[in-house]
């Protein structure tokens, strides 16, 4: 769903044995060629991408939880079906992304284990709770909206499998975003209670959504290599500004107020937001968000309670293979 804040490239690739290979690799990147799984690539490129793609996959999977929280309580059958289909899409994104990460040589099991052990990150936005139905609207509208801002440039990422996965993911995300906005529109055209619910959800999600784009450029340390390798094409602040400029008119159309009294529009038409509280961001990243513990506990529970099922499937597959080869030998 979202990766920008998670870009943590290796500072540099210092162990290149083959300078010629590296130069050729960079020349291909500069010529906008796609790097494919069997192509030579610097170890740091592989490591950076494995980390970024797997963190993106973990985000999709953990991201199922806050929205999944409303599947059983969706207020109409149409909303229930749409939400279930949406969360299922997120799961599908997680699957393609794990598959894309596996092309770099690390198995899905290892990647998932790292997440469950708390060693791999996922997007911090999913550590916030979904308290009312309006949160489902806001997540579609803003969280998926921010994800799209981030992911459209990733469709041109230098690594072929990731870029191709992003094309499909972006199509589905833009559908989700429209769905979320439509939920908001329905609430804002509804009763006073519904409008208040929509405003309250916007108030709670606005700042965490802005934090999804990652630390401000002046303190972001990790972008250089990713930029050079054309994994990342825009800075955190550029994308954040683009998102704010796109979102403010949408909020106005809904009749909602962005919870930033200091926000002003500059001469060029950009909406300038107030200082973001980065202490909160750091706290959530450090594991102290409102739902970090619950999210990890839910994923671990699903994993642990599912172990006997996965073992049964593996045992059966093995028995079957044994019987087939025994039959073939007869």
């Amino acid at each position: 769903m979202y990766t920008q804040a998670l870009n943590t490239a290796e500072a540099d690739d210092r162990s290149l044995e083959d300078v010629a290979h590296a130069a050729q690799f960079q020349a291909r990147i500069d010529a906008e060629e796609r790097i494919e799984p069997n192509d030579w690539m610097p170890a740091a490129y592989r490591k950076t991408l494995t980390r970024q793609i797997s963190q993106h996959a973990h985000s999709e999977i953990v991201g199922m939880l806050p929205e999944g929280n409303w599947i059983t309580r969706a207020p109409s059958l149409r909303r229930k079906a749409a939400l279930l289909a949406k969360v299922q899409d997120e799961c599908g994104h997680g699957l393609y992304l794990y598959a894309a990460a596996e092309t770099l040589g690390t198995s899905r099991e290892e990647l998932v284990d790292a997440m469950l052990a708390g060693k791999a990150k996922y997007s911090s936005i999913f550590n916030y709770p979904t308290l009312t139905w309006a949160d489902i609207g806001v997540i579609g509208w803003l969280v998926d909206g921010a994800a799209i801002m981030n992911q459209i440039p990733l469709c041109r990422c230098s690594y072929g499998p990731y870029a191709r996965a992003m094309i499909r993911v972006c199509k589905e995300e833009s559908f989700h975003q429209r769905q979320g906005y439509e939920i908001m529109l329905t609430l804002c055209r509804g009763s006073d209670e519904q409008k208040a619910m929509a405003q309250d959800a916007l108030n709670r999600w606005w700042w965490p959504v802005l934090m999804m784009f990652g630390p401000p450029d002046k303190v972001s340390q990790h972008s250089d290599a990713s930029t050079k390798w054309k994994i990342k094409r825009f800075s955190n602040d550029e994308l954040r500004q683009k998102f704010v400029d796109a979102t403010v008119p949408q909020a106005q159309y809904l009749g909602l107020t962005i919870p930033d009294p200091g926000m002003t529009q500059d001469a060029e038409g950009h909406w300038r937001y107030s200082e973001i509280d980065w202490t909160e961001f750091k706290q959530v990243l450090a594991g102290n968000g409102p739902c970090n513990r619950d999210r990890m506990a839910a994923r671990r529970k699903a994993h642990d309670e599912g172990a006997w099922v996965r073992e049964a499937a593996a045992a059966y597959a093995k028995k079957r293979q044994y019987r087939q080869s025994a039959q073939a030998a007869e």
Partner: protein
Amino acid sequence: MVVANIEVSETPLVLYTLRRADDALILGHRLSEWCGHAPMLEEDMALSNIALDLIGQARELYGYAAKAEGKDNDEDKLAYLRDVRQYRNLLLVEQPNGDFAQTLVRQFFYSAFADLYWRAMMNSRDATLAAVAAKSEKESAYHLRHSSEWIIRLGDGTEESHARAQAAIDRLWAFTGEMFAVDDSERGLIDAGIAIDPIALRERWLKTVTNVAGEATLVLPQNDWMQQGGRFGRHSEHLGHLLSELQSMQRTFPGLTW
């Protein structure tokens, strides 16, 4: 302001359609509870997919029940504004998910029936029910394949999975008889060629179930006692909790559009 339960004029056709709609919704709801919590991502996808098919079937059937009733009801009123005594689903489908084996055995028993049922209903003289059947039959065939494969894997997998699958069969078996029961209101529809006689499906259902259980090295119970009541609103205690969750928004904020 409407807060209370709606009233439904349960003519034989309305009641018949509602019963099938309730089966689909309640089972779809149960499966949707797994979303995000399944043993593997592939099963998060598959169980959600089956849930979506069933919720889709429920919506078509509720829409038709409302139309057949010809009052002010619609799919959401039928789903969200009837209480436990007005729900008409099979006891089988409201049983809690339990572990993965309980969920899959419940699905297997139901899908083995639904596959035959919808195929037969494609010949209904009621054009709408026949059209719903044509779509549902394709879906049910996939649901049956999915659950059969899992019953075999679990039964013939590890010692633990075998024990869990057997326990699930033993626990859920007594809820299977209700699928084949017919009351007077349905008898008239059967005679008119609108509904099919489920008794005619029982032998083939039992054959499918016996074959799959056999391949899975599982044993079907000998006990013939069958629990019934769901079709008349006499449910297990589980359904009330499910409905209080399903209906919470409509009950808390009555009469609004979402």
